[in-house]
């Protein structure tokens, strides 16, 4: 069993070998934390050429051992004063941008003849949600959250600003508006071709057991290989019983997420079944879900984070992922407990959950150019074993017909006349 004590600057040969893998990493020392605030000298526009030249001005001599510890704001400001240009990180946001974001999507949105959406229950008018992509590549507009300099959004922003920095004030704003309009038209074109969720809801079929079976099979066949956070044999066993499952409603959340992701990954058209299923998940999650901790909840929040990212709601996914990470740490998934008298399978499942969460959380954080939340000291969990798992699949179509109410997918089951 691995017991790797993380120490500052410890160097371990990376990579996998047959046998329990040790953690390959070079964790940075605690002193090498993020720098202080970026230098700012007001709203100075910057072209790619200026940015590149700024690298020369701010860079230390080659070969010098750079200290990436906290840099003093005074030093940063003096660098800016000398260079008269700003580093890439300091591209100023728009005047009206305070990085606030809203990715909410009411499940009861219906379009009226004017094209606006209304929440069925509250009667509150909700604007058409701003479209974004899950990797935040196109989130270069304002009020979409913070995305750092290494994100695709930052690169797009740089391109826009460099285009605006042409000679002639009129030409500058024209080109910038042109870019903006082009992207907006792209999104409008997409929404015309693919009906909004509101249209689908009007013709929504019942989610039968057979349909859910198919979605579960699709999840494990197409999604699970890149995100093996669930133990498939255990899940299928619980699913086949549909009672006595651990966690009560928490398991229902998990099953809905499996179905939602299965729907997302297997759909070949503009099918929004996954949205229905995810809304059922949200209906079961409450603020009280944050006041309890168990492995199923970690899996659920992580899967929800994954789903939201894939459904182009990066900030929402980021939040859910953060909750999953905190829950995981609170359950000690990052540790190895020698002498803990529990099953080997349980310990191994915990490792798989932890490292699945690592790939999800670190991957998305790096994509968004945000500082890492992933703990960089104190992790002991061994990497998952490279073993096969035999599972009897796929699920057979049920002889019985179960109907599900729209608001919750796995509630009280209504047996058919055949059963009675």
């Amino acid at each position: 069993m691995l017991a790797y004590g993380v120490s500052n600057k410890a160097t371990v040969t990376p990579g996998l070998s047959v046998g329990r893998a040790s953690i390959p990493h070079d964790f940075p020392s605690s002193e090498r934390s993020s720098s202080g605030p970026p230098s700012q000298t007001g709203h100075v526009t910057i072209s790619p050429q200026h940015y590149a030249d700024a690298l020369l001005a701010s860079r230390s001599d080659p070969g010098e051992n750079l200290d990436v510890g906290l840099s003093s704001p005074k030093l940063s400001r003096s660098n800016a004063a000398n260079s008269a240009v700003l580093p890439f990180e300091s591209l100023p946001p728009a005047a009206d941008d305070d990085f606030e974001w809203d990715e909410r999507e009411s499940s009861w949105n219906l379009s009226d003849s004017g094209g606006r959406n209304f929440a069925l229950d509250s009667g509150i008018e909700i604007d058409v949600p701003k479209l974004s992509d899950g990797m935040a590549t196109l989130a270069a507009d304002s009020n979409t959250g913070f995305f750092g300099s290494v994100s695709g959004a930052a690169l797009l922003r740089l391109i826009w600003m460099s285009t605006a920095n042409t000679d002639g004030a009129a030409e500058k704003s024209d080109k910038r508006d042109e870019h903006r309009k082009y992207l907006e038209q792209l999104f409008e074109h997409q929404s015309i071709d693919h009906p909004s969720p509101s249209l689908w809801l009007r013709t929504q079929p019942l989610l039968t057991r057979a349909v859910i079976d198919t979605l579960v099979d699709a999840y494990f066949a197409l999604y699970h290989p890149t995100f093996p956070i669930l133990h498939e044999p255990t899940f299928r066993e619980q699913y086949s019983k549909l009672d006595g499952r651990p966690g009560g409603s928490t398991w229902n959340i998990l099953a809905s997420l499996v179905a939602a992701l299965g729907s997302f990954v297997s759909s070949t058209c503009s099918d929004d079944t996954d949205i229905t299923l995810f809304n059922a998940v949200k209906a079961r999650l409450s603020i009280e879900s944050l006041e309890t901790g168990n492995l199923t909840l970690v899996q659920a929040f992580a899967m929800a984070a994954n789903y939201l990212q894939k459904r182009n709601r990066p900030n929402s996914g980021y939040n859910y992922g953060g909750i999953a990470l905190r829950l995981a740490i609170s359950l000690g998934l990052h540790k190895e407990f020698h002498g803990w008298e529990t099953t080997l399978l349980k310990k191994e499942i915990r490792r798989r959950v932890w490292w699945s969460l690592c790939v999800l959380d670190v991957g998305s954080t790096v994509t968004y150019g945000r500082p890492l939340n992933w703990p960089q000291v104190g992790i002991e969990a061994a990497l998952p074993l490279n073993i096969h798992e035999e599972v009897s699949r796929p699920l057979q179509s049920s002889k019985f017909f179960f109907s599900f109410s729209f608001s919750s997918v796995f509630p009280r089951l209504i047996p058919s006349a055949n059963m009675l």
Partner: protein
Amino acid sequence: MLICCDDQELSATSTTLPPEVNETTIYTYISTQSSYHLCTMQIYNRLISSPVPSATELMSLDDEHIERWRNCLPHYYCDDDLQLPRQYLLGHSIGRWRFRLLRIIMYRPFLIRWAQHGSDSLPSPSSPYPREHSESLAAENIATTRCFRAAEECISALFRFWTLGTHTRLAAWYVLCVVCLFPLLSSM
């Protein structure tokens, strides 16, 4: 519904850990990607910190962490055009794209500068900055080359996956997000 278990599998009743296998499993992707992140966190932290890293430093970090991780991948999951079972193709491909995307991010400032100044990468005579030391200039040229190579390899790996892999929404999501970066770069 019975779940098959034998001595080679881990079950609730197992009292010993089964031996690992020398081939791709459902957990190979997670393991290799986790080790990738652990190896490259230091690079990422450096990228988002001040001062901006030099080409020399970035290439050193690349060789020490990314290349070392790549060379230590198991033979059955190495960075190559492998004949894997279909269900593992997407994960393996993502692994091949991911570290190349990091390289593109690391080296793209130098590519941008090269694009602005031309192949000799010399600043204009009117530039207020001192002339670059020839060593750092050479390093930046190498960095630019690495950026191009990473992009070229990424496109090649993407094309191979799209030819062989299953075209699910998940696969399309990854491919589109990766592909988006290249037109952005070329529009500079």
